[in-house]
């Protein structure tokens, strides 16, 4: 996109495309939300007011880690929209590390500490499928962050043009919001079995 290309059609201008791409991303998030909604339905249909017996401490830690990561994700986006490259890099890196920490907490710790496996009744099925699908989304988010981190280090984003950062941030917040529903559904609501 060099400056000497004259008279771009409006359909090709960055601002026009940006608005189009925003609609596309939000539609994707809406679609994905239905899948997570289906998982929540599955959980309440099968377990009702019971819940899997899980380590509350680990749950609280991983939840805090993910929520804090969203704060830094927001910082990263604000930094780049103000043209602060260094702040953007630092915040993205922190977000990514917190995301990896969340994955390690859920898959590395919680999955190992749980005293039931995926084949042990509905609570096993529900717990591993919900956390697994969510972890898969966190993983794709981390990959997305790695891409914008690498391109950010090469200086591809500016205060005016950082759609990829915005998309990664919105996706990250979405995955975070999903966890805000999953955490109480798995850890807090109902009687432990």
């Amino acid at each position, binding site marked *: 996109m060099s400056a000497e290309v*004259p008279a771009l059609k409006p359909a090709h201008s960055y601002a026009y495309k940006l608005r*189009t791409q925003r609609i596309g991303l939000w539609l994707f998030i809406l*679609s994905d939300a*239905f899948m997570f909604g*289906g998982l929540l*339905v599955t959980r309440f249909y099968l377990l009702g007011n019971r819940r899997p017996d899980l380590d509350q401490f680990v749950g609280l830690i991983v939840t805090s880690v993910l929520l804090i990561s969203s704060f830094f994700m927001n910082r990263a986006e604000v930094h780049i929209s103000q043209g602060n490259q260094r702040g953007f890099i630092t915040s993205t890196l922190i977000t990514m590390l917190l995301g990896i920490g969340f994955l390690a907490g859920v898959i590395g710790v919680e999955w190992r500490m749980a005293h039931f496996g*995926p*084949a042990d009744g509905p609570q096993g*099925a*529900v717990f591993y499928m919900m956390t697994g699908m969510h972890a898969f989304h966190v993983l794709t988010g981390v990959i997305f962050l790695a891409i914008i981190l690498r391109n950010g280090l090469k200086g591809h984003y500016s205060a005016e043009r950082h759609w990829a950062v915005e998309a990664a941030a919105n996706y990250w917040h979405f995955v975070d919001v999903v966890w805000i529903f999953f955490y109480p559904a798995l850890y807090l609501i109902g009687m432990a079995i």
Partner: protein
Amino acid sequence: MKKILSIGMIRGLLAQVVGMAIGFGLVTLLQTLTGQPLKAEPAWVVGGFISALSFLTGLGIFNDWFRMARGDEVPEPEEVEEPRGLRRYWGVSYDHKVIGVQYAFLSLFLLAMGGSFALIFRVELAQAGLQFLSFNLFNTLIGLHGMVLIASILMGISAISNYVIPLIIGARDMAFPRLNAFSFWVAVPGALLLVFSLALGGFETGWTGYPPLSVRGPMGVQMFFLGVWFVGWSSILGALNLITTILRMRSKGMGYFRMPILAWAVLSTSIIALTATQMIGLSFQLVLFERLLGMGFFDPAQGGNPILFQHLFWFYSHPAVYIFVLPGLGVVSELLPVFVRKPLFGYRWVAMSSFGIGLVGFLVWAHHMFAAGMEEYLRVPFMYSTLLVAVPTGVKFFSWTATIWQGRMRLQTPMLFLIGAIVIFLLGGITGPLLGTVSTDLHATDTYYVVGHFHATMFGGYVFPFFAALYYWYPKITGRRMSERLGKWHFWLLFIGFMVMSLGQMRIGLLGMRRRIADYDPALGFQLPNLIITLAGFAVALSVLLLFINMFRSARKGEPATGNLWESRSPEWQIPSPTPAHNFSGEVVVTGDPYDYGLEGAPGYVRLEADLTHSPQPAD
């Protein structure tokens, strides 16, 4: 060799085989290394998953996205150089017209395949007793008949919407051309996986894949799940693209209530496809993992609940029929005014009725489960919501009737198919309430009456409008029109064949013929009706063969038709056929209403402005 490999489809197919081998080998290796007993099922599932991704990688659909992720510049999709001629259709193309034709080709291919499956088991059913199919193969064939044709229908509506929607809203392409190509190509390995289930022992569940049977049956069901999963992504991403296109790419002056009615229909369909499709993906995914890891979602022995599967499954699979019929009904409303030379009656009501059907369609899924042992208090609410669907559908029927009323009808082939669509969809519609009402459904459920009703809605709501659209827009694609004579033969053979088939199915269904059985008691007296249904089925197949012959011959020898063949007001007919590259050379400005046919002094729908992009522009 290099020349062969330059064709994307061939690279993809080779890569799919390689991917299958890699996935299979990887899992087997892991099992050997960890000392577990060797199990084929996980190997096939992982192989199948990797094979589909390999197909897409080999095809090259990810290339531009990889470059974007690396931070390289990629060209505008419009400016990508693509091979000329027919080779364009066998690889990745970002042109919505090419993708539309690709969709249509895949759709017709799957239509022929799914229809042939039906012919095979109809021959089996023509006589009592088991002649040449095994029970398992019979069940596999009915399941594949269902799902292959569902895929065909999804591809068919994508064909119409991809080719036509950008043209009728005056756009140069879809909103996301790369995603558009991806949506098409992801369906190809999906369809291959679906059919591959035949090689892995088939499956016994029918197209619905209900557990616990699907948890216990042969392994083919896993390929069936994977295939549906990938085809589902095609549907979701295609819908996302269409919604964005309709919201963002309309030409100047085209407010929402000046959109063509087909755009409304596609918009409401896409909203359903975007959201509900996730549920069939999820439900099949849960069964897939239940089989692989022993997760107890649906097996009562493990504390699961099979009814849950049916809730998740029908949350998509009922709205799915509205995904199929809404674009079809949109085609009827779109083309009817052209052929009766009158404005569409009640434009706003028709536009909103598509949304009404879409909205109510989300609230009716449990009427498939009246006899399934579902929570009893759900029955009556779902009965009422089901019957409510008749209201917006009725709006459409009144609009069509009032549009035809006192019109100067031109009985060309597309119009014949429109009339066929209206009549047969009416048949499908009025046989519905008997199934939507709990008391009568308990008697008719799982009989051939359901089969007859369902096929009437599909033929009226999708097949006939799809064929009408094919005859109508074929000249736009090729510059030649299809033979009217063969077209009329096609119509009458299909119409009469279908009527005999569908009414025959309803009749023996009400007399007690069960569905999904390979054999029946000759004492029931259904031999002759079943024979007649089978023969009628062959008539339907013959008529589709006529269509194929007609399409193939007319592509070369058809009467040239480069102008406004049907005297339509729509923008796509104001430009020459076949559609030039990038559709409109200048801007399209909407100046009137879309369907003001036969009105004295009504302004034209659109005005095409001169090309501005290629002329020198003043510096600003």
